[in-house]
């Protein structure tokens, strides 16, 4: 069951839908009938993104397909190497459908800071999935910032070996109109003493819908794991929807795991406070939203990537004005 198989075999019966537990909030069946053809230039093949190496940062630009498109690219960060990576998904025209698989392997002591900026068209269906494996002593810090699509899902599945490896999986979504964004993570602690941190924040305006599914699994033998997961969302309109499911599955001893989830409206009192100081309500609202999402941006520890994230967020905030 996957969008990829459905596209490659042109068989809509293979699409994930509401009945699949893991896709119940991001139904593709209902929205992809009929299934689009693969873009003609690809003829059933998979494509690769454009890769550009800027000073200090590897940039992978993922252009949108014309119709249906499947793309693949693996990244291996070699032993001891330090890499900054930007995965920039660019919006295309109309009702395109993309499926991108971007596996990542970190060798011993390797370090990767990854920023995913996911921009898609309002009528698009976009599924981006990364399987990430870390060797001992590796560091993987990721921030995903998404603005949704008709259906957009960004999934990250991490295998965490413990043993001095460190993982941070942050995310933010800023949604307006009828956009939908799903951020799904699975963090598999397989070895002893692993630490992981996750903070995901989102805002949903108009009739948009934000989905967050965060699963942490601490396997037998992953004793002493320390995993924290927090999701906070703001609903900016009564017609917006947020669905969140943080999950912990623990099969080991002596673990410190915590998860938190809050969904609320903008703080009306703080809003009045700002207005009473002379800031007009629409600006005050944006200021509070920017501060809320700003915490995610500030956690990005590499200045180049932080600046890129900040400007992406600023552009999306403009769409929330009004």
């Amino acid at each position: 069951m996957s969008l990829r198989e459905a596209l490659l075999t042109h068989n809509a019966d293979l699409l994930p839908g509401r009945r699949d537990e893991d896709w119940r909030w991001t139904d593709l069946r209902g929205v992809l009938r009929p299934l689009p053809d693969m873009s003609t230039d690809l003829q059933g093949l998979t494509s690769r993104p454009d890769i550009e190496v800027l000073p200090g940062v590897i940039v992978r630009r993922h252009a949108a397909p014309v119709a249906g498109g499947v793309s693949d690219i693996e990244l291996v960060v070699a032993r001891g190497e330090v890499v900054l990576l930007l995965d920039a998904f660019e919006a295309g025209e109309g009702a395109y459908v993309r499926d991108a698989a971007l596996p990542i392997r970190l060798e011993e002591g390797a370090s990767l800071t990854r920023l995913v900026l996911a921009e898609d068209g309002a009528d698009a269906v976009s599924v981006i999935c990364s399987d990430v494996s870390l060797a001992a002593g590796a560091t993987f810090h990721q921030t995903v910032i998404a603005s949704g699509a008709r259906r957009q899902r960004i999934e990250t599945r991490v295998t965490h070996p413990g043993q001095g490896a460190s993982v941070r999986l942050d995310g933010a979504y800023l949604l307006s109109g009828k956009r939908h964004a799903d951020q799904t993570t699975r963090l598999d602690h397989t070895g002893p003493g692993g630490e992981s941190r996750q903070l995901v924040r989102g805002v949903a305006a108009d009739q948009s819908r934000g989905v967050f599914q965060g699963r942490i699994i601490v396997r037998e033998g992953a004793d002493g794991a320390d995993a924290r997961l927090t999701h906070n969302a703001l609903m900016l309109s009564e017609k917006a929807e947020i669905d969140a499911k943080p999950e912990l599955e623990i099969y080991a001893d002596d673990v410190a795991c915590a998860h938190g989830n809050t969904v609320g409206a903008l703080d009306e009192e703080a809003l009045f406070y700002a207005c009473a100081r002379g800031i007009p309500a629409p600006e005050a609202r944006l200021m509070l939203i920017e501060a809320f999402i700003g915490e995610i941006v500030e956690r990005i520890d590499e200045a180049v990537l932080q600046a890129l994230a900040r400007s992406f967020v600023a552009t999306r905030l403009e769409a929330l004005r009004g």
Partner: protein
Amino acid sequence: MLDIQNLQVCVADKPIIKGLSLQVPAGEVHAIMGPNGAGKSTLSYTLAGRNGYEVSGGSATLNGEDLLALDASARAARGVFLSFQYPLEIPGVPALTFVRTAMNAQRKARGEPEISAPDFLKRARAVAASLKMDMNMLKRGLNVGFSGGEKKRMEIFQMAMLEPRLLILDETDSGLDIDALKIVSEGVNALRAPDRAMLVITHYQRLLDYIRPDRVHVLAAGRIVASGGPELAQQLEREGYEKYETAA
């Protein structure tokens, strides 16, 4: 300057202010005292323009202009400043950023140019120094993790920066230690000017020893039930509100 006539305000459909009249001429400081729940904060929120404070009758004007017709930010641009009884925390927005945003928004509303970053900083440093505040505090999220007294001092910092014309202080003295009370009062006194009016809400005579009011009013059950000179505050301190509560 501030002219309130027969004001009536409902909160959640419950009448709280019931025909309140009050005039504060330019250059004067008036104190409002009154028992808990009398409607003092309700009056200040109403003047500041908070949603949910329904004016069902009467008027409030500032220099002849109808305040009640304006939204909260427009009132601030006209010079209304409320120092909150319980200042809010705004995580992620440093105090300096907040004040500069507010100042420039007010200037824009008045058709004035923005203040330059160096000019703003220079002024912020001077005001912070006069209130004995650490500049580092102004770089943290506004009021986040501040003590009650620090929040009150931050209110006065904002007031001094924004240079309003009508200053409403809602229990600015509560939560302040003795030294802070003195510093804050000096900050307020420094803002006394012939073109400014102040409304000082307090429960304690002590604040009025520092900020000498021209007039003292007693607010009980949604009305001004007595007015007098500074000696009225001393009398209240001795006798309490009992006789006004029965009168109202």
